[in-house]
């Protein structure tokens, strides 16, 4: 390693140590953008993990500080857990914003796992057909469960959370939607915000026609060629109105490593395991 490279690594470690100790200011966030791409999220998290372990070690020394959580706080958290699970399990209704965050029961998860392990490759259809910017053509093979979108009443908190993710997460990307050859003239506006380190993201959409969820639903796909040829199912969602903006939380059910694009299709109610497209809108990530 050259002296310059060593200095660069030392500086990087210093920034990560500062982050783990007290977070980073805007000036240091900027410096983190220069972190080499080949540094994995796990490596980037290592210093935070060490700081967390050190915090635990001090707690171990300070045994008197180990206190039971107050009962009223425990009750509050259990109530929040009920809300959290209910939100995850709620069914889609028209006129609401959808949150793609289905929380499966243990049994469903087990069945899904088994069916995925047993599914022969021959059942996987190739899903071709999108071009963006530089006539990118990717074969999309879908081998995913039919995770369902769940409802969340429109709330400013989602918009707020989107802004927070964008502003406060160092690796958050913002990618605008583009219409495709199959879906021109709708005047789509909006973008995708996504963070690899947190595996969180949001769709912001305006101009996508309202759907009747008894007839069809929109479905999100995350294209991640580094991970697999199979795009990750982002879940189904509804657009309640032709007017205004819809913000949807993404909860990718598989770990996304390096998204190349986000795409939306229109499918039968509940979505599909294998999509034949066409893609309606695409947000392509610049490499």
């Amino acid at each position, binding site marked *: 390693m050259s002296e310059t490279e060593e200095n660069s690594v030392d500086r990087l470690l210093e920034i990560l140590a500062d982050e783990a100790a007290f977070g980073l200011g805007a000036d240091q966030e900027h410096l983190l953008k220069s972190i080499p791409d080949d540094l994995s999220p796990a490596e980037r998290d290592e210093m935070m993990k060490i700081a967390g372990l*050190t915090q635990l070690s001090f707690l*171990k020394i300070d045994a008197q500080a*180990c206190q039971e959580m107050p009962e009223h706080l425990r009750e509050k958290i259990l109530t929040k857990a009920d809300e959290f699970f209910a939100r995850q399990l709620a069914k889609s209704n028209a006129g609401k914003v959808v949150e793609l965050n289905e929380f499966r029961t243990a049994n469903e998860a087990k069945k899904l796992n088994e069916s995925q392990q047993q599914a022969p490759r021959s059942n996987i259809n190739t899903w071709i057909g999108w071009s963006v910017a530089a006539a990118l053509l990717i074969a999309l093979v879908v081998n995913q469960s039919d995770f369902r979108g769940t409802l969340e009443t429109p709330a400013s908190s989602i918009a707020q959370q989107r802004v927070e993710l964008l502003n406060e997460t160092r690796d958050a990307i913002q990618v605008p939607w583009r219409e495709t050859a199959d879906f021109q003239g709708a005047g789509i506006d909006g973008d995708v915000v996504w963070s690899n380190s947190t595996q969180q993201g949001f769709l912001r959409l305006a101009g996508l026609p309202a759907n009747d969820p008894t007839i069809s639903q929109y479905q999100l796909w995350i294209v991640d060629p580094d991970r697999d040829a199979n795009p990750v199912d982002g879940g189904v969602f509804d657009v309640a109105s032709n007017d205004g903006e819809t913000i949807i939380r993404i909860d990718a059910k598989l770990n996304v490593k390096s998204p190349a694009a986000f795409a939306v299709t229109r499918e039968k109610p509940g979505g599909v395991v294998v999509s034949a497209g066409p893609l309606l809108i695409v947000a392509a990530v610049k490499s």
Partner: protein
Amino acid sequence: MTDQSILERISGGDKAAVKDCLDAYGALVWSLARRFLGNVADAEDAVQDIFIAIWSAAGQYDASIASEITFISTIARRRLIDRLRKTGRRPATESLDSEDSAQPQPAVASRLEESAEVAKVARVLESMPPDNREILAMSLYEGYSHSEIAGHMELPLGTVKTRVRRGLMQIREQLQLTDELAQDELR
């Protein structure tokens, strides 16, 4: 009985695992938050945020990479830092010391005793000069800013930053070293 970890059960949608998670880690997260934020009201808000974050991230937990306690403490730390940066370390509205009339929670201490990683870090801390250890404790455990520590210890700000960085890097190196030694022994 199941061999799955609590986080794996939460990820699988087992709602009963939420209670188990609170039983296992509630006091631990609460104790960390109280000490780090120095304010009971903020700690209560933070602990709620932390558990929601833990449930949301449960699907990303990989037992081959980290223990549950490490995974949870990392999430807790990120959330506590976020809160502290937003709100600052506000004066305690209730004395934490007065709460210490409550009995210490032995299960937390016991859980910490069980963690080999915590034990390794504790050993590195014990080997540090007391001043450096105090600076690390004020920064990482008690949530004081670098400038607050500099004022308290009557040290230049740059010195405090350097000692915190060096302390973390020393712990990192020692953990890597012990991991390498353990792997060598397995060969």
